[in-house]
């Protein structure tokens, strides 16, 4: 397992990096940006997957499965829905260019 301090450091670095990159996004694109970010927040899917998978393989019981699978379903809805909507929105902005 990675040391907690490294994890916290990564969190801080990414927060700062994200802050500066996102500052350059014009308000015109704030809605797609927000919905894109929203899709990205479904990244918790990664955590749900590994936890549920390991729980199943190591036989952690039915409740672990229920929680894990619900988590996976929710996270995938978030990811697919979020990216889908963002894509639709951005295509509207670009309609004229095609």
């Amino acid at each position, binding site marked *: *397992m990675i040391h907690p301090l490294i994890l916290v450091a990564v969190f801080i670095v990414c927060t700062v990096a994200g802050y500066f990159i996102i500052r350059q996004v014009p308000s015109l694109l704030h*809605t797609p940006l927000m919905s894109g970010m929203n899709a990205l927040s479904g990244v*918790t899917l990664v955590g749900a997957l590994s936890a549920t998978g390991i729980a199943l393989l190591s036989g952690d019981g039915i409740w*672990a499965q229920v929680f894990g699978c619900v988590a996976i379903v929710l996270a*995938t809805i978030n990811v697919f829905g979020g990216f889908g909507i963002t894509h639709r929105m951005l295509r509207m902005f670009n309609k004229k260019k095609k």
Partner: protein
Amino acid sequence: MIQIVISIVLSLAVLAGISMMSKVKSSVAGNLLSACAMLCGVIATLCFSHVLSAWTIFVAMIIGALIGSLMASRAQMIQMPQLVALFNGLGGGASALVGVMTYMGWGMEAPEYPMFVRFTAMLAIAVGMITLVGSLVAAGKLHRILNQRPVVYAGHSLMTLLSIIGSVALIVLGTLYGQSWCVALCALIVTGLFGYLFAIRVGGADMPITISLLNSLSGVAGSIAGMAIGDLFLVAVGGIVGASGLLLTQIMCRAMNRSLMSILLGGAKKSSSKPQPQQTLKTEEGGKTVFAPEADFEKLLEQLNDMEVQQLLNAIEALTKEVSGLRAELAQQKGAAPAAKTEEKTPASVLRDAKDVIIVPGYGMALAQAQHTVKQLVDKLEYKGANVRFAIHPVAGRMPGHMNVLLAEADIPYEKLFEMEAINDDFQKADAVVVIGANDVLNPAARHAEGTPIYGMPVLNVDQAKEVIVCNFDLKPGYAGVENPIYTRETGVYLCLGDAKETLMKIINEI
């Protein structure tokens, strides 16, 4: 080791994808890049945690993917804010569940740092549940399932405080004692309660801020869940999302000249004493005379306790209905059409002669679904050789950039959309300004009316324009409850009240 390298590469890809979203042209590719990075992250996780043989996760993933894609492709653009809120909440819920699993010690080897893992797991439960419940409430309000007005219960602040204390206590308890069903369940309930209490008292115009704050929280929840299970990629992406949401929140707070705290806590008190949030009372009209928000009146209201305010609100609602009924009668007697104020000039004639037109859209345009009609207006004006531009206030609509999306849906090129700073000086030069369903964002009272919620908020300088055509539903104060002096200006103001779609059609036909 290779896991860490892959995490770093993928996180950089996500960052690159986001920075590509700062330009319209590269934004589609940027979104796809982020999505691909996410896909790779998922595949990498599946491989490295050796869980490829666990069949249930694939079933769950396929179910989620189907539901998500279906919702994304079926939804109408007008439903965008609530959909974003809903998805957001689901992500937060997933993080909370991951937190529960980690806390219960499911799905992981015995941790090297049990305290840290338990602490972050509890934190993930808390932040995730707040996001889930808060977002669901926000989505419900935006979808009009729930009351859009700020709802304040008796002893609301006390309950909020108690739920915060309870949450903190449970996090501490959970950090000290692991694997207790009781603690996990209590944490889910108490933090969820806090999420509900905090979201239910936010209303109307503060929604964009709440949504972007919740968006930020869902990222933070994911990131904390990542810390709990020790996944670098999750921590990194969650951090980026958290930062972006916070930045958007900050931008909008600044645009409204309100602090975040006042929106979350103090704001509710203020707004609950404003009887008429614009968007809730579509059928009611003409509350204007009843509530000139005199300072005394406000003070009086604030002194009353929450219950009495509610009763008062009901009474006021009944009154407004009566007034609107009378109004309708009056309008019929007059022969329909709440007409223009000046004698010879009509909105159509002003627009016919205008060479430089600025359009100011607001939430009313979204409500009336008038964006396509606006597009027709633009086409007609441009056909006559006029230069048409749009002035977009940072907090117009119900989420950041709401207007831009709606106008893009109506095929209005984004080159015509200008942010407030870029266009504010041009209002005095413009031949005509068309206001469509916007109120607070152009209320000149914000510059001098001290003590009102919008005081100090930067507004569009619509009042400096020579000719202003207002296509609003009615004249009652906007969400902030402050009278707009533009409506009572002597000259150069044309009021076209009613559904923006219809009034605009009328103008277009007359031009």
